[in-house]
C-alpha cells in the first residue's frame, strides 16, 4: 500500500525518488478577489459557449440543417454559421490548428501559462467540481476535519450529494458533446425516449466517465503527469513573459506582523511575507509559489488574491505575489523602475504569423469554388480503338455542386481535334455540348467518353480539358487530363 509513505518522507531520504509520487489529497480553500472573479467569468463564458452553442439555430433555407454549428458525419458536411465545409476542405482544420498553436504561443509570450490557469477544459471543469465540493462538504478546514473524523450520516449524505452533482455535470458535459453531431432538439428528444443511436449513448458514457474521473478525481494529477503542455509551455516562456511570481525582493526576510512593525519602526528592513501560508492553502495544485517558478504552477492567480487579501488586512501594499518577471525583480533590487515590454521580436513574429494564417484562411474561404469538377482517366484500357479506326478514351468525371439548389451545367471538352464527347446515360439535345442537372449540395459522378479520329501525326498523349459552365449563373470550373492514342 502506498499510503505508508508521503512524498515529504521520500524526499528526506537519499534514495532515488520514485517516478510518480503518491497522490496527496489537496483541500484548496475558497478565495475571493480579482483573479477569482476573472476565473468565474471565463468559466461562465467557456461553459456557456460549450453547452449552448449546439442549441443555436441558423436558417440555411429549405432542406438544409438549421443548426448553427453542426458536424454532420453521415452526410460529410461541417456547418459553422454561414460556412459550410466539404470533406475535401478539411485542410481548414489544419489552418485552425496552426492558428490555435500560434495563439497559444502568443499568450505564453505575453502572460505565461494563461491557458493552463483560465481556459484549459481540465482547469475549468475541475474548478467547477471544486465549487460543488465546497458547497456540499464545506471549505478547506471543514473538509480536513471531516476526513480525519469518523464517517457520520451527515458526512455520508454530503458526499453522496457531491458525487450526484458531479455525475450530473459530467453527464451534461457528455450530452452537450453529442449535440454537435446531430440536430440538437430532435436528438434530445430521441435520447430522452431511448430512440437515439447507440453511438450517442456510448459517447455520452465515455465523456461522462472521463469528466467525472479527470475533473473530479484526477484533478491536478492530469496537469502534473498526463498533460504535455506544461513541458512545452515552459519551453516557450522567455524572460519577458509575465508569470505568477512571489516577489522575494519584497517578501524576504519573512517575519510576523508584529516583528515587521518593530523592525520597520527601527528603520530596519523587514519582508512583507508573514508566512501565513494562505497562498498554499488556496492553490489547486498545492504548491508553494514562494519556491519559485515550477511545473505544478498552472498560473491561475488564486494565490495572488489570497495574498492581496492578507496584505490588505495587515496594511501593506498588494501584489506581493503578482504577475511579474525576473527582469523586473532584478531592476527593483537594483533600484530601477519596473518595465514591461509586450511588443518585442517574439510577440511581433507570433502576431504576424497569426495574421498571415488568418488572411490565408479568409482568402481560401472567400474564393472557394461552389462548382467543381474532378477527372479520372480510365486505367484499363487507357484507350480503345473503334471499328472505324477512331480512338476513344473513357473518363470518370465527378461534379461538385456546393450550392443549395439544383443547377444545369454544360460540359465542353477541349483537346484532340474533332473530339466528340458523350456522357453515358445522358441523351442531350446538344450532342456536342451535353447538359446535365447537378443535384444541390451533392456530388454527381458520371462516365464520359471522348472519341477522336485516329491521326498518326498527333502526339500519343495530348492534354484534354473538361470545362463545365453553369447555364444560369455562368460559373465555370475545369479539370485537365490526357487523351491517349495507342
Amino acid at each position, binding site marked *: 500500500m502506498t499510503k505508508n509513505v508521503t512524498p515529504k518522507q521520500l524526499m528526506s531520504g537519499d534514495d532515488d525518488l520514485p517516478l510518480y509520487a503518491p497522490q496527496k489529497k489537496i483541500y484548496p480553500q475558497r478565495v475571493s478577489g480579482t483573479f477569482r472573479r476573472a476565473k468565474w467569468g471565463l468559466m461562465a463564458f467557456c461553459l456557456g459557449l460549450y453547452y449552448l452553442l449546439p442549441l443555436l439555430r441558423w436558417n440555411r433555407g429549405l432542406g438544409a440543417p438549421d443548426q448553427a454549428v453542426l458536424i454532420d458525419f453521415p452526410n460529410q458536411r461541417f456547418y459553422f454559421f454561414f460556412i459550410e465545409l466539404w470533406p475535401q476542405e478539411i485542410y481548414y482544420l489544419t489552418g485552425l490548428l496552426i492558428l490555435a498553436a500560434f495563439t497559444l504561443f502568443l499568450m505564453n509570450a505575453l502572460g505565461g501559462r494563461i491557458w493552463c490557469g483560465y481556459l484549459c477544459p481540465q482547469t475549468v471543469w475541475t474548478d467547477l467540481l471544486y465549487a460543488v465540493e465546497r458547497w456540499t462538504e464545506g471549505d478547506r478546514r471543514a473538509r480536513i476535519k471531516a476526513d480525519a473524523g469518523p464517517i457520520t450520516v451527515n458526512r455520508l449524505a454530503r458526499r453522496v450529494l457531491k458525487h450526484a452533482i458531479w455525475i450530473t455535470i459530467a453527464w451534461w458535459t457528455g450530452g452537450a458533446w453529442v449535440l454537435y453531431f446531430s440536430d440538437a432538439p430532435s436528438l434530445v428528444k430521441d435520447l430522452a425516449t431511448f430512440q437515439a443511436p447507440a453511438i450517442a449513448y456510448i459517447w455520452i458514457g465515455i465523456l461522462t466517465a472521463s469528466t467525472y474521473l479527470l475533473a473530479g478525481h484526477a484533478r491536478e494529477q492530469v496537469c502534473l503527469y498526463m498533460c504535455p503542455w506544461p513541458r512545452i509551455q515552459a519551453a516557450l516562456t522567455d524572460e519577458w513573459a509575465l508569470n505568477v511570481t512571489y516577489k522575494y525582493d519584497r517578501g524576504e526576510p519573512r517575519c510576523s506582523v508584529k516583528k515587521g512593525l518593530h523592525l520597520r519602526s527601527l528603520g530596519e528592513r523587514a519582508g512583507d511575507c508573514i508566512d501565513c501560508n494562505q497562498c498554499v492553502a488556496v492553490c489547486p495544485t498545492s504548491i508553494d509559489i514562494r519556491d519559485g517558478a515550477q511545473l505544478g504552477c498552472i498560473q491561475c492567480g488564486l494565490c495572488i488574491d489570497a495574498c492581496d487579501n492578507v496584505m490588505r488586512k495587515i496594511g501593506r501594499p498588494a501584489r506581493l505575489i503578482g504577475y511579474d518577471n525576473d527582469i523586473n525583480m532584478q531592476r527593483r533590487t537594483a533600484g530601477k523602475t519596473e518595465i514591461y515590454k509586450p511588443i518585442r521580436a517574439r510577440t511581433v513574429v507570433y502576431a504576424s504569423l497569426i495574421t498571415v494564417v488568418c488572411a490565408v484562411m479568409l482568402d481560401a474561404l472567400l474564393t472557394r469554388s461552389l462548382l467543381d469538377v474532378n477527372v479520372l482517366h480510365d486505367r484499363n484500357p487507357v484507350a480503345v480503338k473503334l*471499328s*472505324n479506326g477512331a480512338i476513344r478514351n473513357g473518363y470518370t468525371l465527378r461534379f461538385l455542386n456546393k450550392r443549395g439548389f439544383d443547377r444545369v451545367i454544360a460540359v465542353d471538352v477541349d483537346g484532340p481535334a474533332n473530339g466528340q464527347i458523350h456522357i453515358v*446515360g445522358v441523351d442531350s439535345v446538344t450532342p456536342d455540348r451535353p447538359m446535365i442537372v447537378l443535384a444541390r449540395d451533392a456530388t454527381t459522378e458520371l462516365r464520359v467518353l471522348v472519341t477522336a479520329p485516329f491521326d498518326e501525326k498527333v502526339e500519343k498523349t495530348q492534354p484534354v480539358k473538361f470545362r463545365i459552365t453553369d447555364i444560369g449563373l455562368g460559373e465555370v470550373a475545369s479539370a485537365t487530363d490526357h487523351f491517349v492514342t495507342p
Partner: protein
Amino acid sequence: MSAHNDIDRVSGRLTTGHEWDGIKELNTPLPRWWVLTFYATIIWAFGYWVVYPAWPLVSGYTTGVLHTTNRAAVTANLAQLEALRGEKMKALGTASLADIEKDPALLTLARARGKAVFGDNCAPCHGSGAAGAKGYPNLNDDDWLWGGSLDQIMQTIQFGARSGHAKTHEGQMLAFGKDGVLKPDEIVTVANYVRSLSGLSTRNGFDAAKGEKIFAENCVACHGDGGKGNQVMGAPNLTDKIWLYGSDEATLIETISQGRSGVMPAWEGRLDPATIKAMAVYVHSLGGGK
C-alpha cells in the same frame, strides 16, 4: 516464510524477506481485482462449454445448447446483407434495361453492382477493365460478335456462346485447312484477300481475283458479302479495324486452317436475374454499346 516485518524504505512496502546480494524482493501480491477477474473467467468458461460447441468427441463434438455453427452465422449474415440490399436490388430487378440507363440513380447502382460482379466473374477472361485479350473480346469497343444492344448483351451474358445451354449462341468458324476443304496455297490467298478487305497490305504477287472467288465459295455464307460479318451467327466483320485473334497473315492462316470456337459461359443460374441486368447495363455503359 519466516515472520518478519521488513519494510522497503523507498516504496514503503513489505518485502518477502528474500535477499540476494543486497537486493530484496518486494512482497507485491496480485491485485484483488485481477484475481477476481481470473476466477470470473474460469466460471465464464463453464458457461461457454454449455452454450457453445466446445468438446471434440470421437465422431463429432458437443454442439452446445445454442447449436451455433459458423456456417449458420455466415448464412444469417448473407441473408442480412440481402435484406439490406433488398429494396434497391428489387428496383433493378423490376425496371426494364432501358429504364435503368435513363434513371441516374439506377444507372449508378447498376454500374457499381456490375463492376463488382464483373471483377469476380468476367475479369479472368475479359480483363479487369473489360479490355479483353487475344480471343477474348474487348467490351469497350464498338465491335460486337453477337450484337451490342442492351438486350443482345444481356442475352449473351445469360446464355453464353457455345456454352452448351439450350438457348446459347451457336456459330462456328470451320477448320478449312485441318478438314481438308482448302489447300494450303488457297488458305494463303484467302488470308491475303481478307487482309485486303480492311485495307491491310498484301503479299507480293497475291491473286486478288482468286482470293475473292475462294471467299465467295467458302466464307460468304457466314461472313456475308464483302465480309461485313453477321451477328446472328457471331461471324465477325472482316472489314473493320478490330481483330479478335489478330490481323497478321500468320494468325489469319492459323484461323482459317484450324477454325475458332471460343466459349462464353452461360451465367443464368449462377448469377441472379437482377445482377445479370446490372451486368448488361455496366457492359453497355463501357462505351461500345449500341
